[in-house]
């Protein structure tokens, strides 16, 4: 949706000459011929615009037939042709002459409700300040921005839940079974999985509920199943392999290399002839998109005892595999358009979308910053995080007091003096992790954590520990 610069045009035509539409150049030309002095208006609203001010309406040429009389007080009609058409082609000769006598042009933008206008009223309109579309645009943008700033992540989350509620009416399973799965797809999927194929779901809408429904109907209490949430921004293949290895039924050693780990898992599974099911939500997740991770999944897919049902959402999702990998996975593709909103999958994107004015950072950015901190700085930050988590449920909690933080740091030998602590806090401020504010209650200095979401703060605490 490109914004065209609107160029309003005023066309004046006469009743006596109904079909003749005279453009503004003609008028200017006539004006210049009649040598009427023209004054420029004092203000110039924007570059390239000029105002033509007419003392009186330009003379309208009429056929001076004897039979026709020139009517007095003849009305002129204002026809606004279009507010987005460009100007009619300019005659350069006239432009030159115009420059002698004219400095600005004024163009009307509004539609007039009554097209009948008297000449003296037209003067008034032409004399009014320039009403340009640009002004309206900037006002709209400012309003939009201010509204956007007021939105919180909770608002978005609630909105997403409402959208889901609208389509599901509280019964997710019924919606999926009746509206989405019209046949015996679940049966088919289960048959194919048991026969050694792997299933890949794609289509518009979140498929997380569908996968969990399939699990409940066919795999619950029957087979060892791992539901891997690939859409999570902090998931790593190493964690996944560790969780699978550590399961008592598999009990494989976790090795340094991921490839060795998966091969060890496959060995144990083949030895025990244990059928396991991997339900991977978003196999094209952010952290799964590199070749090494996909090679791990490929090795798993090639094992006859590991059955994979996965979903992809990204429009370019299938590009993570080349021809060889694609055949190694033995995918059977199913198109399933659930049209359910992506609630859990878009947590990170929603937070990113409403992070304005560089005052907040995304999860990955914060984690990256924490990794770059010195061990001492991390300890100090951990104190702040722990204090936040302990008190976040309190209504009036603004943040940890500076004096309190200093006491704790001094006791634990993190800092020697107040200046060192302040230097450290300045580093945190530079990294946009905290803010120093004055308390509204007692005017004391408070260190406020800029990350507001509890879940993210908990994750950070885990990372710090």
């Amino acid at each position, binding site marked *: *949706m*490109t*914004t065209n610069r609107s160029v309003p045009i005023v066309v004046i035509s006469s009743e006596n000459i109904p079909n003749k539409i005279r453009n503004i150049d003609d008028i200017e030309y006539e004006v210049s011929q009649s040598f009427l002095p023209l004054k420029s208006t004092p203000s110039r609203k924007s570059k390239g615009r000029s105002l033509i001010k007419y003392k009186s309406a330009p003379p309208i040429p009429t056929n001076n037939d004897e039979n026709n009389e020139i009517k007095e007080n003849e009305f002129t009609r204002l026809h606004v042709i279009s507010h987005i058409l460009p100007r009619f082609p300019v005659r350069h000769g006239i432009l030159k002459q115009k420059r002698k006598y004219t400095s600005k042009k004024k163009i009307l933008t509004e539609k007039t409700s009554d097209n009948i206008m008297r000449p003296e009223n037209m003067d008034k309109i032409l004399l009014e300040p320039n009403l340009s579309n640009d002004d309206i*645009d900037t006002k*709209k943008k400012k309003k*939009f*921005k201010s*509204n*956007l700033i007021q*939105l919180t992540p909770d*608002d978005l989350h*609630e*909105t997403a839940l409402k*959208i889901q509620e609208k389509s599901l009416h509280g019964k997710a399973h019924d919606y999926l079974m009746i509206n989405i799965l019209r046949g015996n797809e679940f049966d088919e999927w*289960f048959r194919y999985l*048991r*026969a*050694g*194929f792997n299933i890949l779901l*794609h*289509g*518009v809408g979140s498929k997380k509920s569908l996968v969990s429904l399939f699990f409940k109907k066919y795999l*619950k*209490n*029957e*087979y*060892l*199943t*791992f*539901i*891997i*949430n690939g859409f999570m921004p*902090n*998931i790593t293949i190493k964690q*996944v392999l560790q*969780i699978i290895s550590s*399961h008592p039924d598999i009990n494989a050693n976790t090795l340094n290399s991921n490839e060795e780990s998966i091969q060890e898992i496959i060995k144990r599974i083949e030895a025990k002839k244990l059928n396991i099911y991997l339900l991977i939500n978003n196999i094209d997740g952010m952290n799964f998109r590199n070749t090494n991770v996909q090679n791990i999944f490929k090795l798993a897919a090639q094992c006859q005892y590991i059955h994979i049902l996965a979903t992809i*959402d*990204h*429009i*370019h999702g299938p590009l993570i595999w080349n*021809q*060889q990998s694609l*055949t190694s996975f033995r995918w*059977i593709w199913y198109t399933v*358009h659930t*049209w359910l*909103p*992506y609630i*859990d*999958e*878009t947590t990170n*994107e*929603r937070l990113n*979308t*409403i992070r*304005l*004015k*560089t005052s907040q950072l995304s999860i990955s950015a914060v984690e990256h910053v924490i990794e770059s901190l010195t061990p001492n700085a991390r300890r100090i930050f951990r104190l702040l995080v722990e204090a936040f988590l302990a008190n976040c449920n309190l209504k009036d909690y603004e943040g940890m007091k500076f004096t309190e933080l200093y006491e704790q740091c001094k006791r634990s030998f993190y800092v020697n003096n107040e200046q060192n602590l302040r230097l450290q806090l300045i580093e945190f401020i530079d990294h946009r992790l905290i803010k120093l504010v004055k308390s509204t209650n007692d005017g004391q200095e408070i260190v406020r954590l800029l990350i507001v979401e509890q*879940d993210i703060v908990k994750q950070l605490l885990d990372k710090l520990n």
Partner: protein
Amino acid sequence: MDTIVEVHSVTRTTQKPSNKKSHEKIDITRIDHITNVFTNVKSQLHARLVTSVLDIVKKNDKFRRITNRCFEYIPIMALCMDSNMSEHSHLFDELQEQLSSKFKSIIIKLQTIDQYSSIHNILKTTKNELNKFYPDKDPENKNVFFQLSKFIGIYNELKENEKRSLIFIIPEFESMNISIFENFINLLSLQIKSISISFVLGLSGGDHSLQRLVASRIASKLSIDTIYDSSARKYYEYIIKSLFLSESNEQFTITAEQLHFVDNGYFETFSLAWLEHALKFIAFSDSTIQPVNQLNICLFNAIYVSCNQLPNYPLGRYRSSFYESYLSNTPMFNELTLSVNSSTIHQLDTCLNSFIEHKCNENSLCIKYCQLAKKIFLEQEQQIADDTQTLSNTLRSVSDKKLNRYREQVFLWLKQICECFISPIINTSTKINENLLHERLVPMTRAIFIRELTENVNWKQRQIPDLALLYRVYTESGTKIPLSDWFDSFASLVEEQEIVDNDKDKSILARFVHGLAELDYLGFTKTSLQRSFHATKLTWDN
């Protein structure tokens, strides 16, 4: 918030009824049969290649023993596989085993990229193998780079019966840097008088794969034997014959449409793994197929031969469409006529000879047609025996009555076969048609996704979802989409279909932002709010 991995163990109780579906037996005999066929065909064709290589090595060995002379060139055996090398890893394992057992050779296999990424690595691998037969007696040399000349000095002092030849096997030659190979050959060529050295190279492509080697600076130092006994088409022919045209009990039928799909897919990718996957899916999915348009041995052979032996235009190139049209009983013999009419005597002879060679096993009708083909061949051979050396045989001579008559006979013969073996079309009861195969095996995910977003047919009775509304505006926009304008358009579209109170502006904004986040997540946009309130469009579609 969700956990990264949810673990659900098995908790069976006697009281709860178990899922009946998990105890249903699944018939995977066809799938196993397909796996066996593929393994057998590969090993059969690999065996031919191994035999060819062993013959050449045997010949070279004999030459050295008898003449007691060395070669002036380094012998290279190039195996042109015409398909992805990763599917033929067993070939090189088999080759290594056979060469090491049958000949007194030291086999050095350079199979990983690390091993042939530099000359140093190649020499390191060589040293490791040589140490198994000729252990390094000088302990001081352990940490030093392997010096081939020094080794040769020690080698020359050995007795004749202790000497072994060196054979290098490089399965994926095309992924090796040619300059590294050239330098290595230069190094080895200094020593070929003392020790027998040869190479076995695996090449994925056809003839053009060797050009790199032939055009290199070291071509004069090499003597290249190319072994072509493996091609993608050959694998395909053997697999299709074994699956559908053999006498085994595990035979299952396939429709023309399904064969057409498989044929097209295979000859686009030349991937045996894909072929296996597609055939397994067809075999498993439709176990109740009626034998409609059953592929017949004679017909398949006739089509295969005529497509491969007759001139390339128009037949050989469009093989799948040719037998699809015949198998679907559409009387389109134009292509066949054109091809036969434009072929020379030699080509027609080759066509008939090949068909006789490919004759089916014990099938009475096939034998009948083989006899007919032989008859045509013998008759014409006698008549045109004199003309074989003249130029006119290679030209399309319209006035040549004998040639025309021969062409006519061949054409009628092929037509008879096709008409005889095409059974009438019955309304197929199979659900595995070409559309479904495309959907299940090679879907166009992006097109499907965008079609679903843009089609309004589904939403006549219900409200259009927010994502669809946002996408509608998205498609009409340029690269940078100003968010405020986008929001205005979205809000007006929402207000058209819903009654929204003025106070609830924020809900529309929240829906808009949520939709933006979804589009970001799906990869359609990249929203930036930090500098300019714009979203960058990332996909462009018609």
